[in-house]
């Protein structure tokens, strides 16, 4: 094969893992629309861990189906994307952006077009792709939006249009990080953007009906925090919660004891929110603990639910997600050190949890995981990842 193994890294925080440090980006070998990047079927280890398909390396996958084709978008140069007819065999396609959006340079000086955590969805004749521009350990970040009328490249209407920034976070001003956005509609059809990573947790903000900007009204109830975890109040504004911001001089900031606690304690390690509606409830999935550390990752998915999109979200024990609650959905197993950054989709009547997990047999590289999701008698989601 043409070696289109793309090793993708997303540093929301945390240390530089040397074992997966070097991005090996082999760009755009596929010239034809059918692509020549199909992974041979014999590489598929379907069935193991109940995963539909294993093998392609992705980080933060998001999927939508148009006609008979599944389209997957994930973290990567210009936003990586893949297609499949069966969610099992995937072909890599052209990235969404050949070069970084022009506005990215102001938000992250020196931005290299390595875009994080895309989220694709379809609404009223248009495909909406939210994506994150950021750099690890820092919250000078922005969520951008690109739209397209179709995802089929050979359709004459196929053209990605960038709409710029939807929401931006500023260090020292905001105690949240504008990354990891997903779009959600409440029962009244009002659009909301849920996003966030570390700092003081997962945010929800109401969007205008055009889905491109934050709703501007005199009303004050447009912003909410949906989930957060313990964060020591004395942490610097620019510290995500684990003292890994390369721009901070930690010797000067905190006494050694506090620094050690920060580095161990997973303080505020929460990100990657996704809201899924079912039976009158909004289920908020989030990822806890550390991504992006290969075999040392501790990433896991937890959930809470609410009758209202603005919360409060409670876990199975009635603990508020805003007070550190969250019921475990899935975590690493003997083959994968950790799993997280999930979405949930319904295709042909079946619910699926889509995520990435760090493959212990492949030096902790992040791999696509698709698991069937069922619901228990109390209406809570269940997946098996043995």
């Amino acid at each position, binding site marked *: 094969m043409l070696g289109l193994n793309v090793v993708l890294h997303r540093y929301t925080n945390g240390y530089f893992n040397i074992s997966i440090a070097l991005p090996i980006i082999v760009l755009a070998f596929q010239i034809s629309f059918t692509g020549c990047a199909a992974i041979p079927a014999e590489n598929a280890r379907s069935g193991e861990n109940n995963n539909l398909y294993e093998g392609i390396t992705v980080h933060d996958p998001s999927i939508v189906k148009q006609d008979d084709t599944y389209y997957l978008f994930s973290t990567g140069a210009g936003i990586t994307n893949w297609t499949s007819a069966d969610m099992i065999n995937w072909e890599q396609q052209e990235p969404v952006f050949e070069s970084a959006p022009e506005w990215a340079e102001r938000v992250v000086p020196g931005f290299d077009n390595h875009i994080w955590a895309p989220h694709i969805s379809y609404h009223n004749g248009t495909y909406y792709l939210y994506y994150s521009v950021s750099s690890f350990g820092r919250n000078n970040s922005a969520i951008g939006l690109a739209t397209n009328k179709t995802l089929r490249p050979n359709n004459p209407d196929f053209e990605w249009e960038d709409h710029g920034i939807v929401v931006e976070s500023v*260090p020292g001003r*905001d105690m949240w990080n504008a990354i990891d956005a997903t779009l959600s509609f409440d029962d009244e059809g009002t659009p909301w953007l849920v996003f966030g990573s570390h700092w003081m947790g997962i945010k929800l903000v109401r969007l205008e009906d055009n889905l491109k900007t934050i709703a501007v009204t*005199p009303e004050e*109830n447009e*912003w909410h925090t949906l989930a957060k975890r313990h964060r020591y109040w004395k942490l610097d504004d620019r510290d995500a919660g684990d003292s890994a911001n390369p721009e901070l001089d930690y010797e000067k900031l905190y006494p050694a004891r506090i620094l050690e606690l920060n580095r161990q304690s997973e303080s505020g390690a929460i990100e990657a929110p996704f809201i899924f509606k079912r039976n009158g409830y909004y289920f908020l999935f989030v990822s806890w603990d550390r991504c992006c550390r290969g075999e040392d990752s501790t990433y896991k998915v937890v959930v809470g639910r609410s009758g209202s999109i603005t919360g409060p979200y409670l876990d199975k024990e009635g603990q508020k997600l805003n007070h550190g609650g969250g019921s475990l959905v899935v975590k690493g197993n003997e083959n994968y050190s950790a799993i997280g950054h999930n979405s949930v989709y319904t295709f042909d009547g079946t619910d699926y949890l889509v995520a990435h997990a760090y493959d212990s047999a492949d030096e902790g590289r992040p791999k696509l995981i698709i698991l069937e999701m069922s619901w228990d008698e109390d209406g809570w989601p269940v997946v098996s990842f043995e």
Partner: protein
Amino acid sequence: MSHSLRFHLSLILTLLLAAGLATTDTAAQHLDVPIHDPVMAKQDSIFYLFGTGRGIAVWSSHDMESWERLDPVFPDTPPWTEEIVEGGRYHLWAPDITYHNGNYYLYYSVSAFGRNTSAIGVLSNPTLHPDDPEFEWTDHGKVIRSVPGRDLWNAIDPNLVFDDNGTPWMAFGSFWMGMKLVRMNDNMIEIDRNPQEWYTIAARHRYWKLDDRDAGDPMNSTIEAPFIFKKNGYYYNFVSWDVCCRGEDSTYKIVVGRSKYVTGPYLDKEGQDMRHGGGSLVLQGNENYAGIGHNAAYTFSGTDYLIAHAYDLSDEGRSKLLIREIKWDENGWPVVSLNN
């Protein structure tokens, strides 16, 4: 939030009492000037005092002793304040007055009771003399706005300061996650966005589980009213702790820390970072005053003064103007005595 409701009811009462006094007595000795959150500027030989009140209260004096009440800054409230707080149930608070390049800039707060639905606005005037033909306040709208659920700070209690490079900064804040500092545009009426530069310069403990819309623990975590004063190569950050606005039950006090840089970190006498709860006591209540706070500091004719309000125990805890000289100890820390 019953605390804040009480606080604001007390504030209204205090101000109504103050207004009541003012209508019968437009001149007062400084010990009896009813004021809340005073700031001062001197133009030519006249001192002008601004404070919280309907339309922003204004007083003038030739000697800082006898004061005459003038018309408030706003006869009517600015229309844009409706956007911040609907229905007119708001108040104009805590002004700050600064002179720069031919204009006086008056920053002030608009807020709703107990919420951080707030904004800091700014007006300018080429002169403070009401009889000057050029006297006219121009409204420049809002500088900063805080939004509940989005911001963990409250856009009130502004204080403008210039750093040693002549760059303007705005300190502000009340409750929530403490005192903020943001770089201003040279035009003095908006924040600079190339890029935005924000810092926290002082804070006290805040429990992480608190709801975004919860101002914070009034007994242990109250912090507000920052004022930065430059002296001998240091920036001194005065802030007010504990409970204001409760008349005789107030426990308001002033603490300070200093830094070589306007952006901090500000350390107190023990080297404690003001963002970690540090702050060295400057003034607190005594047998005459229940509490003292929301101070400013200025140099007039070579003497440094601390201006604040104090809850007068001989007058049922009404808040009065307090002016005291600031002396500096051998380590360069401010010393203020309540004795005349």
